[in-house]
């Protein structure tokens, strides 16, 4: 009995050790993502699975950081243990820990077919002349509108080239406060990154091009005009104010059929599709005859600077940019023009406005790229926007406050 144990036990140990070693032979790539919705997680996993099938012996470990993406990524980088691959949009904050990709892009330029990717999207990952990420998806902003509510109120559907005056007139007709139905929604605490599109559309911006001047820029008459317009919409009841003590979102109201028109992006579309609302999509309205601009939210994929296997990580990044992988990502817009055309997206009336907004969105640079202290300045700007929405006006005074409170960050 004892003899058998002496033989069997080491044999089992050896077998598990051997088996463990075989598993350890698999090369592991850690990939951090920010997806929270089940569909986007599934899409991501589908691409990862395809890559693993094409590359036996490689395991891609998807790490779902979800809403805590920045916190977890910061903690991982601070501990010197960042994931090999990660989604990325905030290049200024993280580029020092990322690997520049220019050499690899140049080497594999033919394979990547860079002409198929709009340059505006490639430039999203450019810091100080070096590229730190390959684009994986993007969205622009549009207006979602409830066709049934518009028809019931006798309001014509928005056409390309419409203005804020048109939207306000429609919202005034559509708002029925006693039935808790609203024409439009104004967010008192918007993401300033997205909100800047309204400033751009009125010929204003948050900070000067060289990132050094706020006074006269952030509180210019055009800027105050934008905020005053939104404040006035709340005052007259054309729009409902969101995020003042309430955490109901615009898309919740839209999906419930309580909101006639809403500014949104691709991340709203999936939920709205599911809700069954009969909706249409229109481009953003313009301020008079000034050219309308939209924010481009481009996400990219980056490689950590000190990753163990740069070539394998780059192989994954290249795979993510192939037309097949791009076509799988149905939760945002394709970075490749060929995929957009071949899939018929550009002809779809619910998607065409997104591409229309991309076509006119050049010449604008997001503020967070212009000044390293923008994060702190943005806090004061957010306060000014919130104050104007609560005050339902008085934008210039609040913007002046934001400018003076931010002066110490410009030094």
């Amino acid at each position, binding site marked *: 009995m004892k003899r058998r144990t002496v033989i069997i036990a080491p044999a089992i140990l050896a077998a598990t050790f051997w088996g463990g070693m075989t598993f350890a032979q698999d090369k592991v790539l850690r990939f951090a993502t920010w997806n929270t919705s089940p569909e986007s997680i599934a899409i991501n996993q589908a691409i990862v699975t395809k890559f693993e099938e094409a590359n036996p012996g490689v395991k891609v470990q998807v790490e779902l950081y979800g809403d805590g993406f*920045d*916190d977890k990524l*910061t903690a991982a*980088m*601070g501990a010197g243990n960042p994931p090999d691959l990660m989604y990325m949009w905030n290049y200024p*904050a*993280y580029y*020092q*820990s990322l690997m520049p990709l220019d050499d690899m892009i140049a080497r594999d330029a033919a394979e990547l077919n860079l002409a198929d990717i709009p340059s505006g999207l490639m430039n999203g990952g450019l810091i100080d002349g070096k590229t730190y990420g390959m684009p994986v998806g993007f969205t622009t902003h549009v207006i979602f509108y409830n066709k049934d509510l518009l028809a019931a109120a006798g309001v014509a559907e928005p056409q390309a080239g419409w203005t804020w005056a048109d939207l306000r007139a429609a919202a005034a007709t559509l708002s029925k406060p006693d039935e808790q139905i609203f024409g439009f929604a104004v967010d008192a*605490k918007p993401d300033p990154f997205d909100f800047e599109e309204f400033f751009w559309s009125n010929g204003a911006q948050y900070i000067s091009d060289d990132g050094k001047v706020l006074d006269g820029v952030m509180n210019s008459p055009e800027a105050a005009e934008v905020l005053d317009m939104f404040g006035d919409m709340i005052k007259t009841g054309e729009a409902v104010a969101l995020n*003042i*003590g*309430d*955490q109901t979102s615009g898309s919740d109201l839209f999906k419930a059929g309580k909101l006639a028109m809403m500014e949104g992006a691709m991340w709203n579309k999936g939920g709205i599709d599911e809700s069954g609302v009969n909706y249409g999509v229109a481009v953003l309205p313009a301020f008079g005859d000034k050219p309308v601009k939209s924010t481009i939210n481009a996400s990219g994929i980056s490689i950590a600077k000190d990753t163990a296997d740069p070539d394998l990580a780059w192989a994954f990044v290249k795979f993510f940019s192939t037309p097949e992988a791009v076509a799988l990502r149905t939760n945002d817009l394709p970075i490749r023009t060929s995929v957009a055309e071949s899939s018929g997206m550009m002809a779809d009336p619910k998607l065409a406005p997104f591409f229309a907004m991309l076509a006119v969105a050049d010449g604008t640079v997001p503020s967070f790229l212009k000044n390293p202290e923008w*994060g*702190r300045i943005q806090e004061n700007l957010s*306060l000014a926007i*919130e*104050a104007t929405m*609560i005050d339902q006006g008085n934008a210039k005074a609040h913007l002046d406050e934001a400018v003076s*409170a931010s002066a*110490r960050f410009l030094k």
Partner: protein
Amino acid sequence: MADAVTARRPSRRRRGAGITPWLFISPWILGFVCFTLGPLIFSLTMSFYDWPVVGERTFVGADNYRTMLTEDPQFWHSLGVTVKFAAIFVPLNIAVSFLLAVLLNTKVRGTAFFRTAFYLPSVISGVALVTIWSWIYSQRYGLLNYLLGQSGTEGVNWLGDPGWAVVAIVVASLWGLGGTMLILLAGLQSIPKELYEAARMSGVPPWAQAIHITLPMLSPMLLFTFITSIISAFQQLTIALLLTEGGPLGSTYFFAMYIYETAFRFHDMGYAAAMSWVMFVIILALSLLVMRSSSAWVHYEGEMKGKGGTDG
């Protein structure tokens, strides 16, 4: 000669316990050094550096502290908000806990059930608590405004009005008074009944009994809960972070939240560490102040004030 060789050394057992006690306490000491003392010293070091999460770390000496105290209006604003919150929360916390403890101390049926019911909210996780309160406080659909509407008054925008948001957070924080209540209840139950009997027989009215018997006998517990309430008020973070996100208009932007955002939003670890140490100094100063004043109002059982005891 033979004596010197055969002289016996004293037995080990008699000399002392040796290394054994150290081995027994080493797990705790190791944990303390690795997880408490070590990070404490590390954060103190960090506070003298410009320490971004990603990038170069440069030594700046006392610059963080200087900036904080002279150039940062947000520091004073957050401190002001926190002090205002503490000023409302601490007295309310102690008063309501005391009231509930007195009620639970009565000889009525069902005190066990109510004790559990009052203690339960304090063990709920902060996130669940915030979710419940955000439903209660919602201006349009909330329970509180509905009940107020039923009784005739118009409900305010609890979380959206800069004036009311701090009050809303105070009330939500009061749900955590279960622990304080239990401590005071234990204190109440440990007061000797003979004192009350003697007072009743001497014809002392109930309110005087409360002032001259209950409060002095309870004062050590009150001191403890006072200090712990101050500490937890200054460290308030979860509720503000989740319920109001520091808004509206920064009216609930607590100091702990400013530290959190400086560290994890603006990635400025050195500055956040400096602010944490300033918070530590402030809380320490307040606690010492309370301890100092305690000799005037805290009465420990067995202690004799002034002349007494064996002296004539």
